[in-house]
């Protein structure tokens, strides 16, 4: 499961919107995964682990706290944004970074079922089938949730004046 630790951590962060709560979820999910690993008969360990992360997050009381107080925006740990990555012009780089923070805030503000679907697709690059497995949702629902998530995001971005 360790090769999928990054994916698990990212999903936990996007669900919990707070890195401390995300680490709690990650720890708990990995312990559960280790406990039940012997009974894992599937073919896709990543989707299985993401499903455990998601179920752990859903059973956490902290799930729906945090969005107003600590959106992920602006919160960078090691491995966060590297300004130098965005070209030579520091002003453009700063602008781009601000933009990213705003996009992140918009994603973080999506309802949790839309947020998890979008995050699994866009950041974890899961297939529809994998998302359906991880979220225990029919593929048709995955498709309509993705659509709604993207519509909401596009509208919010337009309202914010993002390109």
């Amino acid at each position: 499961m360790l090769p999928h630790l990054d994916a698990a951590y990212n999903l936990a962060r996007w669900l919990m919107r707070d890195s401390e709560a995300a680490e709690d979820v990650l720890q708990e999910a990995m312990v559960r995964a280790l406990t039940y690993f012997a009974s894992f008969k599937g073919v896709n360990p990543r989707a299985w682990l993401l499903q455990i992360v998601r179920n752990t997050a859903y059973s956490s009381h902290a799930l729906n706290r945090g969005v107003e107080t600590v959106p992920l925006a602006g919160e960078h740990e090691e491995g966060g944004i590297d300004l130098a990555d965005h070209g030579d012009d520091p002003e453009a780089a700063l602008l781009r970074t601000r933009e990213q923070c705003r996009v992140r805030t918009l994603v973080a503000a999506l309802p949790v079922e839309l947020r998890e679907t979008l995050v699994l697709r866009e950041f974890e690059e899961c297939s529809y089938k994998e998302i359906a497995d991880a979220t225990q949702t029919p593929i048709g629902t995955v498709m309509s949730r993705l659509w709604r998530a993207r519509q909401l995001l596009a509208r919010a971005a337009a309202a914010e004046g993002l390109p």
Partner: protein
Amino acid sequence: MSAPAPGCDKVLLVQAELDGELGAAEAAALAAHRSGCPLCQKAEAELLRTRALLRGEPYAAVPEAVRARVMARLRQHETRLAVASTMVRPGRRLWLWPSLGGFGLGAACAAALAFLLVLPQGGDLAVAVVASHVRALQPGHLEDVASTDQHTVKPWFDGRIDFAPPVRDFAAAGFPLQGGRLDYLDGRPVAALVYQRDKHIIDLYIWPASTVPRMGGGTAIHGYNLAHWTQDGMTFWAVSDVEGAQLDEFAKLWRRGS
């Protein structure tokens, strides 16, 4: 929130195509429709914009500190699982392989290793070798053919595997052959020869080498020592809990070919 697909019922297909979910035939049919459907064209443009918005999002790896805490927690938990599983099997022969400690512990170790290392995914071959060795140490898994006679073990592989692995006995040098089995490594069936050194088991995995010859070398993972070399078009991995020096001696015997 509005209906998922306002206007044209094909917009979800437009989305599916951008998500790489459509087959060639479906995509072609969609392209034909889209060229005459302004709603689908608009949907595509919007979806592309949204995607561009998200593309700049940095993907944060797990910070080292978090990873370390998770690993510590898992090790703690792994030990508890191992202890629990030895306790639920009081009637078993617990000391079949003295070097390993017990059936339950072996099973738990194998599960934990497999868990920690999972699954090929471009993963490190050395770790896969160790995981396979630990799995094999469970009772009943070590040998498919149990024989100290290389002339029994070698023909056993005929027809079971698509190459003829070299089989040698080094009893005189203190590494008696115990048998062999089929195993699966590096995405293919491989031959595994089982040797004993005092109370320790050595697994030697053999399969045809890839075109690039790899340097020999030793390493250690989770307390198991490994030796790896290529010879006569075959790749060899030896793994055991014997001391590194003894495993090197074993590897040298093999490479000398005597």
